[in-house]
């Protein structure tokens, strides 16, 4: 089974707590987006799952097996890096074939798989080129193709679309989503682009300062944020927040009134009043 389970994952860099007590559970065929502002520990979390970073505490399980002590190459995962990390001295075809060499497949079979995946991602025309001579979108497709050419346990994407222009980003978003849907693997995508998270994810984990603030479906994250941070982080334009005074309870609802002098004037955009309630 292609699953990722992470329990109490913690990473310390010296005195700095980069990731603290993160719990994640990604089922087979599910796409989980780690969303958060820069420096919130989402990439570190991903790198710990990949095995490129050691864990200070906690456990990573891939396909039910504890992999903390296992080298990245033995974890059977494929990762797409933010800057694609294509091998600059190898042609596109060699880049795509590289992960297969480790599996000791015969050359004919490697060629077959390469041309197959190249057809899938429209790379057939550029197979003989070096990465330096590719357009940005093509580089991105090579990176994705190199990840899916093997049949790994799960996929990790680190800000896969951040380098593309807006138009390309939209097409690639659809394309990646389509490919992932066809593979039914556990997938973790790191992004700071909420649009990306909201459109591609089955579930979103919003992170701040190394902690997970909320894990929920895109719809729930958007409409029912669990706390002020999530409420403020999600949505463009931002959700309007208004301080109010709690005056009483009516069954499951609360009654509140605006202070006579609002501390922050509501904007002219359509807004909803957010009442701060002590639970």
């Amino acid at each position: 089974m292609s699953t990722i389970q992470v329990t109490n994952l913690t990473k310390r860099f010296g005195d700095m707590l980069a990731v603290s007590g993160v719990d994640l559970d990604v089922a087979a065929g599910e796409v989980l987006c780690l969303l958060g502002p820069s420096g919130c520990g989402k990439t570190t979390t991903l790198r710990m799952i990949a095995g490129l970073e050691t864990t200070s505490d906690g456990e990573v399980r891939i396909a039910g097996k504890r992999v903390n002590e296992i080298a990245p190459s033995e974890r059977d995962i494929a990762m797409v890096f933010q800057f694609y990390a294509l091998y600059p001295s190898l042609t596109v075809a060699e880049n795509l074939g590289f992960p297969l060499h480790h599996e000791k497949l015969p050359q004919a079979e490697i060629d077959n798989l390469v041309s197959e995946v190249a057809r899938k991602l429209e790379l057939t025309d550029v197979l003989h080129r070096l990465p330096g001579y590719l357009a940005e979108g093509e580089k991105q497709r090579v990176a994705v193709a190199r990840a899916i050419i093997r049949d790994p346990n799960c996929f990790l994407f680190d800000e896969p679309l951040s380098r593309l222009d807006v138009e390309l980003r939209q097409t690639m978003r659809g394309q990646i989503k389509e490919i992932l849907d066809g593979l039914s693997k556990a997938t973790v995508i790191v992004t700071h682009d909420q649009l990306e998270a909201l459109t591609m994810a089955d579930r979103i984990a919003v992170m701040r300062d190394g902690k997970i603030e909320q894990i929920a479906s895109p719809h729930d994250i958007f409409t029912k944020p669990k706390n002020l941070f999530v409420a403020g982080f999600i949505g463009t334009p931002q959700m309007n927040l208004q301080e109010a005074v709690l005056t009483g309870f009516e069954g499951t609802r609360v009654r509140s009134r605006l202070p006579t002098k609002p501390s922050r004037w509501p904007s002219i955009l359509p807004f909803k009043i957010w009442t701060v309630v002590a639970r």
Partner: protein
Amino acid sequence: MSVLTSLFSRKERRLREAGWGWSLFAGIVSLIYFFPVLWIIMTAFKTREDALATPPVFFFTPTLDNFIAVFYRVAQTGSGEAIGTGMGGFFFNSIFVATAGVFLALVIGTLASYGFSRYPLKGNDTYLFVVLTTRMLPPIIVIIPIFLMFRMAGLSGSYIGVILLYAAFNLPFSIWMMKSFFDELSPDVEDSARMDGSSEFGVFFKMCIPQLKAGLAATAVFAVILTWNEFLFALLLTSTDTRTVPVAMARTIGGEIGVEWGLLAAIITLFLIPVFGVTYLLQNHLLRGVTFGTIKK
């Protein structure tokens, strides 16, 4: 590039071809720089009279006598027979010692800088600084201890001794230069190769080294020039068999008829050819190496 572009206003960012005036000016300036080299090369083809003529002559009948004299001289016995000067051997020594020394320094330096760049130790910067300090003192300060050590170790006068010394000479410089190239490389590529099942050796040789060709070439050229011209330690630590050209050159000064300028110029001219050759072959890499990473891609 930045100097060039900042010279022109934003609107005229395109590179303009220089006019005749500027080209001529540039030509004159480079001629002034190149003149000593030109003078030496000219002297190499002059007879003794032409070489010493006042005012200097610029038009003369070239002769190859000096070049012949580099390798052969007339025997003192009066039989008129030509005997070798051994200069060919000294040229071989210079080439062999420089190549081996630089190669060794590059191999060790590249591996060390990879370590410094990718697996920093506690106090990494201190180690790097210590490595650099070995280049801070003038070499003449350590010449007596090194001479005694080489004597006691039996390395004095052997190829191995000079090669080791030159490798050690070039090592700090290679480490620092290669480290800056490694720092510019994205570690993502290496991580990715690791995840794709590449061994650590594969990561280093298949991923890093091909990307660093320019850096290696640039480092090699600087190290070769440094080693090629080294005189002081060669003078002390080489024997008749392992003598390098700079030492041999110094030994031709003197003699019964004073300094033989023509002969000296001929040796220098021959001595310049290999460095010219290496630099010319690697010049494209050299430029890329020197400007490596100065512009964010």
